[in-house]
């Protein structure tokens, strides 16, 4: 089966690579320690499926712009490699901006291919962030209730800083824990640095 003359299995590869790269980029850049909470958001899956579809569409439409885009020779000679490379590059390609128009104080709008992305991306990433916040809150709240005393919370957090941690970073972290006003804040700071598993050990429910 072909789609616009491109093997559907290769289109599926472009879809899979584009979706995976998008998922990995979002997780590693914004939620490396708490990605488990992002995986519970339906918006996360919608977001990566959109980029997957854009990758698949880009590959399917490539033959129509073949006279403008030269993809012959070298690694591009292999259609599977071509499909994977299109999937890998579609997100970066769609973020090309030629100029940025300032629309107000602290607000701007990119002009270029990124204008298209602006139709859905800020809105979806906002929902992913809200879902993530809600899941983080569900994780922290019962632990903070079990350890309502901020002093005890700080002690638990400081006691669980891994011994392999650099002394200067340990000093900075202890300062952060000591400045946290509530037990909830101590757990929140601990979670940001050490992730879900160590937080569960330090602050069991």
């Amino acid at each position, binding site marked *: 089966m072909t789609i616009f003359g491109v093997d559907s299995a290769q289109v599926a590869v472009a879809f899979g690579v584009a979706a995976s790269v998008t998922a990995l980029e979002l997780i590693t850049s914004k939620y490396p320690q708490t990605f488990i909470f992002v995986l519970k958001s339906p918006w996360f899956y919608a977001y990566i499926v959109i980029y997957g579809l854009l990758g698949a569409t880009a590959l399917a439409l490539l033959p129509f712009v073949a006279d403008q885009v030269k993809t012959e020779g070298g690694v591009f000679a292999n259609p599977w490699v071509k499909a994977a490379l299109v999937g890998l590059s579609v997100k970066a390609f769609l973020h090309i901006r030629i100029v940025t128009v300032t629309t107000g104080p602290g607000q701007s709008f990119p002009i270029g291919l990124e204008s298209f992305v602006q139709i859905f991306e800020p809105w979806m990433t906002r929902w992913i962030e809200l879902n993530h916040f809600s899941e983080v809150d569900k994780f922290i709240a019962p632990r903070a209730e079990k350890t309502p005393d901020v002093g005890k919370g700080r002690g638990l957090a400081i006691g669980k800083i891994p011994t392999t941690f650099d002394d200067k970073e340990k000093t900075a972290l202890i300062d*952060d824990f000591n400045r946290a006003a509530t037990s909830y804040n101590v757990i929140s*700071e601990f979670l940001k640095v050490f992730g879900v598993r160590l937080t569960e050990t330090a602050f069991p429910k």
Partner: protein
Amino acid sequence: METTDLPLSLQILRTVQSFGKIPRGLLYQKVPASSSEIDARVSELADKGAVKVEGEFVKAE
């Protein structure tokens, strides 16, 4: 992980370490907190020997 997601003192320390030596004005731009809050954290980190303050610069120890 984006540095801006980290707790503030750790964020300041990592920013200073990534520059090696950073003017205070640039640190204010890099770290999303008020200058007075950053100053308080830098003082605390300097007192504990995690960073060194040299005039208008903050240096990694």
